């Protein structure tokens, strides 16, 4: 038996020596165990469930192919949009996806600069999700021009027409913002992957596997010099990405805010859009990771604590969004502008009332449920609420776009937008692209940053004086450890304490 003092001392020893918090990774795993747990899905045989998931996602992706082919052949007339609702689902989907793409870089850049260690378990998957969401987002402005073979007009390229995009238009800034964001995200993600790809290379059994992962890991040897460069590059890229997280959705909001349309022409748009983007991004990360951690048995790496942190961020950003919704109404009234007042009354009580109240319920009410500890620590509850948030954030963009446009200044032009089957198939198909890419990511890329997670283990600290955990060759002891530690009501790994107590 341990005395109370001894137990306390051991707990301190296992926890972070600086901030004295419980370790982030449960089950007191060894370095090797982390590698094994994360590499298993990449190195094992392809699971039949993965095949099922992949074929379903790929089938939906083929719907996207068909819908886009039909669109390119026939033009945007196949969609339900028409004057005065010239933007409808296309731009709604664009803003929806680009918003989702905000979580990854926020996690890997801003949380990195703030030294939030819990980001290490989720940053890889979140960044991958970001890149796939940006890919989905880029489709929509690309195809909504109708004649996609002249989509290069969006870029300022020298041409025989002596024609340039309008540099004063936020639509052009948007092209830059989104493309820079996509590029930096890919570079940041890939750079972070290099040490882990090298791990896969070094463990590879077959020649082809060795060559492919060897090629992708660009000669990483794990030398001190490589790690120094790696750390420097991470810091530089995090510094570059941080303003991008804020700028991209700010500029997306300018697409609306700089026009003189009631309901769009508001100064609150940039912060409101950024908060909404982070909100929806974290919701999507939570949706995906709750399933992934269960399916791949990494619940000791992506723990309840991680999910709880994400739920808290959702509550913060969801409250900001709710505040913005209310303030818009206040400003509409306070401005005394009859058109502004009309459009906001129309949003809530006009023909699109159902969309408005769907948005309001999902975005304002549902994240407030996370004030209850029982709900923000329950994966099932977080999963359901995050889905509602995703639905709500899609409706937010639809409400902003459709309600402001459908009541033109000229009442004879008033219009009620309804989507056609092609609107719906294109949007549904973009999920096919997203989930197909995510399936490939899960199968071929380490879904958690192995090297970074190891760095937050207690024994990674140079001042660690306790006993190194022994390799545990049994395949999945993690679940047991999690269950036990949760029963005891703290986040200390029970098995670790027990094992040490045996000495």
């Amino acid at each position: 038996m341990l005395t109370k003092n001894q137990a306390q001392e051991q707990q301190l020893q296992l926890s972070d020596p600086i901030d004295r918090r419980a370790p982030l990774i449960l089950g007191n795993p060894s370095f090797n165990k982390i590698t094994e747990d994360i590499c298993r899905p990449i190195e094992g045989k392809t699971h039949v469930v993965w095949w099922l998931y992949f074929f379903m996602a790929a089938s939906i992706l083929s719907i996207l192919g068909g819908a886009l082919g039909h669109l390119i052949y026939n033009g945007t007339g196949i969609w339900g949009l028409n004057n005065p609702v010239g933007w409808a689902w296309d731009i709604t989907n664009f803003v929806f996806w680009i918003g989702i793409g905000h979580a990854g870089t926020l996690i890997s850049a801003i949380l990195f600069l703030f030294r939030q260690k819990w980001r290490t378990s989720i940053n890889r998957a979140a960044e991958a999700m970001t890149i796939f969401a940006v890919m989905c987002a880029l489709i929509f402005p690309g195809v909504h021009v109708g004649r996609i073979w002249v989509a290069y007009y969006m870029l300022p390229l020298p041409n025989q027409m002596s024609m340039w995009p309008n540099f004063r238009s936020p639509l052009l800034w948007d092209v830059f913002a989104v493309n820079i964001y996509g590029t930096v995200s890919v570079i940041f993600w890939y750079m972070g992957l290099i040490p882990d790809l090298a791990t896969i290379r070094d463990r590879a059994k077959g020649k082809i596997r060795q060559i492919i992962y060897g090629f992708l890991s660009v000669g990483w040897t794990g030398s001190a010099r490589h790690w120094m460069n790696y750390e420097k590059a991470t810091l530089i890229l995090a510094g570059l990405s941080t303003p991008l997280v804020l700028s991209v959705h700010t500029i997306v909001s300018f697409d609306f805010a700089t026009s003189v349309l009631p309901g769009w022409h508001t100064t609150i748009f940039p912060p409101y859009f950024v908060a909404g983007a982070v909100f929806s991004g974290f919701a999507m990360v939570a949706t995906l990771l709750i399933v992934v951690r269960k399916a791949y048995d990494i619940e000791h790496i992506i723990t309840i604590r991680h999910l709880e942190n994400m739920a808290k961020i959702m509550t913060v950003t969801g409250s900001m969004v709710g505040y913005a919704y209310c303030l818009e109404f206040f400003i509409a009234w306070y401005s005394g502008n009859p058109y502004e007042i009309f459009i906001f009354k129309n949003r809530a009580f006009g023909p699109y009332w159902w969309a408005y109240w769907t948005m309001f319920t999902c975005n304002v009410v549902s994240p407030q449920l996370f004030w209850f500890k029982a709900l923000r620590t329950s994966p099932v509850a977080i999963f359901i609420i995050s889905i509602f948030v995703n639905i709500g954030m899609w409706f937010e963009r639809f409400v902003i776009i459709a309600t402001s446009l459908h009541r033109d200044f000229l009442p004879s032009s008033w219009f009620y937008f309804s989507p056609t089957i092609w609107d719906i198939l294109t949007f549904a198909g973009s999920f096919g692209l997203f989930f197909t890419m995510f399936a490939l990511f899960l199968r071929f890329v380490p879904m958690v940053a192995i090297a970074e997670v190891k760095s937050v283990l207690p024994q990674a600290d140079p001042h660690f004086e306790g006993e190194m955990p022994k390799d545990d060759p049994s395949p999945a002891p993690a679940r047991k450890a999690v269950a036990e530690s949760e029963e005891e009501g703290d986040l200390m790994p029970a098995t670790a304490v027990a094992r040490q107590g045996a000495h």
Partner: protein
Amino acid sequence: MPVIFPPWTNKLPLATAAFAAIAPVGAIVFFWYWGSPAFTDVGYQPIQPVPFSHQLHAGQLGMDCRYCHNAVERSPYAAVPPSETCMNCHKLVLKDSVKLAKVRESHETGKAVEWVRVHMLPDYAYFDHSVHLAAGVGCASCHGRVDQMKLVKQEKPLSMGWCLECHRAPEKHLRPKSEITNMEYDPVKAGYKPDEDPDRVRKVSQLAPPIHCSGCHR
């Protein structure tokens, strides 16, 4: 750990990075030069059904452009002449020439000779010959020295940028009314000042050739 790749592959990342930097610039330069009408369209010289020589008619014989292209001052189209116009002379001159067989046939049957169009603007670009002539733009400005061509070929790119060059600064390309069809006249060499010409009704500043989209894309 055994090595997987030979040493030369150490250069691959650098080469890839260099390629990634150069490739987009290369692609832009490629399309900018080899994809522009100045490269693809200039020099277009299709074989015509009848070997009509502008060099002979407009050059050596000194016929005015407007003898055949008679609608050019009044209509958007310069007009390709009907075979009747040819036969005005060729009833008497070279009336049995083999080269003119198709013209005679057309004259008899009333079916037009199928000339191949050389200067082709896209359908979405509106162009009117008469306003350009009224403003004092000469034939040679857009069509080149047709009086020196045995077989007509496209000499100018007719690209949008090329049109805009003149629309933005027309004064260098204007000439007196009397010199419109004069192929040899060069307004810069002649030192022509449009605003000092008493025959011109409007000053250059009043011409205001459109440079907005719907000026030509109506």
